[in-house]
Structures are given as C-alpha cells and as structure tokens.
C-alpha cells in the first residue's frame, strides 16, 4: 500500500494579491504515509497556499504539484486528491446526497460513492436532509465526505478540526492516522499546534507567508529548554543557596525558575544548604509555547 499516496511538492510558490504578498517563495514537500501539519497563525497564508495547490488560485510564481503534476493537469483529480477547504461550499437548499452526487457525476465516479462517503463520515442518517439545516460540525463532516468521494491517495484538508466537538476531534484524528497508515498522503492545516499535535508526524510552520520551521514533530520537542520551578518557606535562604551553586535563576511569583539544570541538582543544592523545599518541579514550556515563539520570533 506504500505507493497509494503521492508526494506533494511546493516549489518557490509565491502569491500576491495586488501589492500584498500573501505567500512568499514557499518550498516544501509532503510525503505519503504520514500526516503533515501545515501550521501558522490567522492570515499566515495557509488557505492561499492550499488553494494554489488545488488550482483554485493562480500562483504569481512557482508551482505546486502531485508527483510532479499540477492539479489542473491530473487525469482524474478526485480519485487522486481529495480536498476540503475551510469555507462551507454548499447550496443550502440541496441535500447532502444530491450535493455529492453532482460531483460524483462530474468526476465520472459511481453515484453510489455519495452514500458511501456520507457513511464514512457518519452522516448516513442525514443524507436526504437539506444542508441549510446542518450544524457547523455536520458541514465540516460533509466537506470531508466530499474529500473522500473519490477514495483518493492524497488528502488536503484546511482546518478540518474547526467546529468539531471533542468526540469529533478524536474521531477525525483516528481517521487521519488510519488514512496515513494505509499509505496515503495527508496534509492538514491549523492555526493551533495543540489541535493537531496528536495526529501529525511532520510539521511545516508558516508566518506572514514564509516558512519559519519545518521538520518532524519530535524535532520541535527537542528544542524545549530545561527549566525547574523551586520554592521554599524561607525564600531568602533558598535564593542564597541557589546563587552559591552558580545556577542561573530568575524570580517568579511563586518562587524561583532555575535554567538549564535537572530538578535533582536543584534539590541537592537546597539539601546541602539545609533549606526546606515546598516545591520542586520540572517546567515544560510545551510545544504550543515553542510554536508561538517560532511564529512570533521569525525564523528559528
């Protein structure tokens, strides 16, 4: 199944709207068999990049391809790539089944695929209801059903988690993992790392239209700094003991933060100085903080 998905390749993709450059010289690739998170704050250019990838937006320069082929040149687009973009794109007066059948016809897929993909996203009970009455989460699922219509090897999903309840988030996480495990290429965007952290293998972070970080999720984790929170009923004595040990310390509201050291070393220093401790704890800044610092602080 390893050859099911195709490799997505962005090469120097640039898109300007008038004088404003929304996406600038974007180059990265997305591999099959993995879930890749495409992250960045609001207005970073995620949707614009994905729309350019799908031939909906004409790039100012550069290309975006699937195994070297532009979306518009794919022989059978819906069976190659399934996409769901953030904006709800439905006629409210149409039923979900009719909505999907229209595009099944256009893509020369069996009409029965409409019902099948509605079942895949758990909407089979609502297939013949008008979409106008759907909740946000149901619309999100219908968008996903459209993406799955052609049983494609590549999935491109813009903010797929938006509007889903915790159960829905867990469900989509498992779905994306299983699709990738089958050898498909899965690219999902989000403005929150925590939202997709449990489903992605690789991440690409963009900010103001430019790539600021690219690698595996694990890479991002190792950038985390070692910090220890420590406190004592006798803060003055603790402060003196820490300084005497030559640690780099910082006052905080609830004691001290000690940098670049294991908690054991801090405990030992206090023990040697005979200072009683009321708190001793390793602080993780967390991936999200790391993400925010990358996004806010430019290239890393």
């Amino acid at each position, binding site marked *: 199944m390893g050859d099911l998905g195709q490799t997505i390749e962005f090469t120097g993709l640039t898109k300007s709207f008038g004088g404003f450059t929304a996406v600038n010289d974007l180059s990265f690739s997305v591999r099959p068999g993995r879930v890749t998170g495409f992250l960045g704050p609001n207005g970073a250019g995620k949707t*614009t990049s994905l*729309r350019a990838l799908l031939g*909906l937006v004409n790039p100012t320069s550069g290309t975006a391809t699937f195994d070297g082929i532009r979306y518009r040149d794919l022989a059978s*687009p819906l069976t190659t790539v399934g996409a769901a973009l953030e904006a709800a*794109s439905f006629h409210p007066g149409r039923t979900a089944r009719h909505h999907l*059948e229209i595009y099944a016809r256009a893509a020369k897929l069996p009409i029965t695929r409409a019902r099948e993909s509605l079942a895949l996203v758990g909407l089979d009970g609502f297939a013949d209801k008008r979409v106008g009455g759907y909740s946000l989460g149901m619309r999100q699922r219908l968008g996903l059903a459209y993406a799955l219509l052609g049983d494609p090897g590549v999935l491109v999903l813009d903010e797929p988690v938006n509007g889903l309840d915790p159960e829905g988030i867990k469900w989509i996480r498992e779905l994306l993992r299983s699709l990738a495990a089958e050898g498909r290429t899965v690219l999902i965007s989000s403005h929150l790392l925590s939202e997709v952290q449990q489903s992605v293998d690789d991440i690409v972070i963009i900010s103001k239209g430019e790539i600021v970080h690219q690698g595996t999720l694990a890479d991002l984790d190792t950038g985390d700094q070692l910090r220890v929170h420590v406190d004592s009923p006798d803060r003055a004595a603790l402060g003196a003991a820490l300084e005497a040990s030559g640690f780099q310390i910082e006052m905080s509201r609830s004691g001290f933060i000690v940098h670049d050291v294991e908690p054991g070393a801090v405990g030992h220093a206090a023990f040697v100085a005979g200072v009683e401790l009321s708190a001793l704890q390793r602080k993780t800044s967390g991936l999200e903080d790391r993400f925010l610092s990358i996004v806010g602080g430019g290239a890393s």
Partner: protein
Amino acid sequence: MSTLIAATRAEFAKVFTTRIWWILLIILGGYVALLSGGLGLLFGATSQGMLGASEGVEGMPTTGLATMIYSTATSIGYVFPLLLGALATTGEFRHQTLTPSFLATPKRGIVLSAKAIALFLIGAGFGVVAIACSVGAGSAALAGFDIDTALDSSDTWALIGRSVLAMAIWSILGVGLGSVIPNQVATIVVVLAFTQFVEPILRSVGALADWIGTVTQWLPGAASDALVGASFYGAMGASGAQLDWWAGGLVLLGIALVVTVLGWLATWSRDVT
C-alpha cells in the same frame, strides 16, 4: 469530450436538485397561459363587436392574431429562462460551490461550456412548456370565437419551433450575464430592469424613426422577436425595423456567447478565494 459530457450531466443535476427551476416554470406557464388566453378572449370579443366598441372596430382583421398571441410565450416569457440561467451561475458564486465544481472539473472552460449546454437544453424545455401553455390557452380562446387558430398551418409550427430555440438561447444569455455580474441580487435587478423597462422603452423609441429602429433591432429582445417571427410588440406597433428570423437568431446567440466570454474573462477564470 467525455469530461464535457460528465460535467454537463453534473450541471443538469445542479439545476434539478434545488427548487428554483420548478418555481420559475410554474410561474412561466401560468403567466403565459393567462396572458394568451386573456388576449384571445379580448381580441375575440372585440372582433365580434361584443365589447361595445365603435363601428370601425367591428370588422377587425383576425389574420395573424393567433401567432401573435402564441408568441407571448417568448416575447413575454423569455425573462424566465434568462433568470434560470443567471441564477445557475450566480448561485455558484453566492454559495461558493465553484470550489467543489472546479475541484471535480479543474478545466474551468469545460464547466462553463457544460453549464451553457445544460441550460440551453433546459431553456428549450422551458420553451416547450411556455409555448404549450400559450398555444393551449390562446387557441382555446380563439376557437371559442370561431377565429382561425392557424394550427393547421406549417408556418405556425415553424414559429413554435423557433420559439423553443429562442428560449434556449435566452438561458445561455442568463449563464453569461450571471458570470459577468456574480452578485445574485444585482443580476436579478439588472435582468428585470433591462427586460421590463429599458428595452421596451428603447424599442418604443425605435418605432418613432427609421434610423433609431435600425439600431434598436439589434437589441436582444428585438432579435428574439425577429427569430420567433411574430411579436406582441410588433402587433402593438411598438417596434420599427426587424431582422430576418435567421439573422435575429444569430444576433441573439451572438449576444449570449459574447456575454458568456466576457463572464469568463471577468470572473470565471479568476482566483477562487
């Protein structure tokens, strides 16, 4: 080619899976039946002096009356296929369904062509219903006054065929117009303002002087009436010069295609964001 056929089938499904097509069709049928039936009764009664008119009216000629009444299907009803075509395109912009459409058929020219073909055929269907209503109600009314219904004349049947063609072309013009003006409300306002006020006024002015008439005969409504070959406006003496039927058809088709190409340039080929 098979992509075009698939896309055309999708365009048919788009029209028939929402309600607007049968709402417009029912209004079209009812309106045209009422109007042609009413005109049939009015002229029938007048020709027999029943309406207490002056002496001179009594002998009103009734030749050509039947086809004029039948032609209300197009000369009055054309706004319905025009609206249907316009809504078919503006709806895609309004509900952002261009995104799934262009994902399924990335060659956008094929989507626009498929829409034009599907709406041409559906517009022809509207034409069949409209002319059936006008001929049905109109001929029944005329027959009631023993006026010739002209249904045994091959000219009448040729007019009926040309009416269906005219309605089909009006649908394409709607598709083009909706692409030029993707805002649904704006398009509806433009369609109603142009068809109900602007063009009728211009054509009335055209009847005043020959040189104006040679210009206004190129208007889409005038070209459509020329194609059909009989017209309510013509009978009212409200239009001057008229093109040959085939020239009228070509002019109407030309306008529809030019507007559609403008729509391609203005919106259809642009970024979908």
